[in-house]
């Protein structure tokens, strides 16, 4: 079974702190994603990576950056956390280009910025 592991399930950070959310997948998938989920807004794509060191902005990249130094690991960075970044963050991965790919999610990281 594909496993996507998010390192922290619950975090509380202070405004202005730098925050790292780590994600590891064990299925050699090409693509990795970071989504943010808020009530009533569904899942919104923050960043997407289709290869090591390659990234593409999603719908809401402002205030976030990402790092993918190794194929299995994709990190989301909040350079200076703000209260409006309090949310649930979901990491996901999927195989490379191919008809019928599905996406596999981690369990989510609940971030509270105070």
């Amino acid at each position, binding site marked *: 079974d594909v496993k*996507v592991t998010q390192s922290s399930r619950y975090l509380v950070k202070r405004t202005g702190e730098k925050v790292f959310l780590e994600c590891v997948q064990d299925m050699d998938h090409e*693509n990795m*994603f970071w*989504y943010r989920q808020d009530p*009533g*807004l*569904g*899942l*919104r*794509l923050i960043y*997407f990576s*289709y290869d090591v060191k390659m990234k593409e902005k999603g*719908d809401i990249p402002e205030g976030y950056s990402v790092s993918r130094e190794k194929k299995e690991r994709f990190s989301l960075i909040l350079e200076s956390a703000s209260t409006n970044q309090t949310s*649930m963050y*979901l990491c*996901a991965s*999927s195989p*490379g*280009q*191919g*008809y*019928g*790919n*599905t*996406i*596999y*999610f*981690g*369990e*989510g990281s*609940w971030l509270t910025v105070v």
Partner: protein
Amino acid sequence: SQQGEEDPQALSIQEGENATMNCSYKTSINNLQWYRQNSGRGLVHLILIRSNEREKHSGRLRVTLDTSKKSSSLLITASRAADTASYFCATVLIYNFNKFYFGSGTKLNVKP
């Protein structure tokens, strides 16, 4: 945005009844997928329907796709309390197999 819209936002039914959720989207797709999310957890893939398919079944799930109306529906038959969850549709576009666009979900509550 390509993001799909699910309808209704919330649905409450009795165990044994059928549950129907709808999804509409905006641009041409390669395929459409449905996912389930238990409260506070990640999403899990349920079923995929390709753009050239009209209906697909998997156990108690039936998915239909109408590309002319840009809509899909998910039917869960003989629902169980364990089906209580949020259900999301995700679209994959024709020109980009790598991205998944999710709707805002339907929250299903199945009362025992």
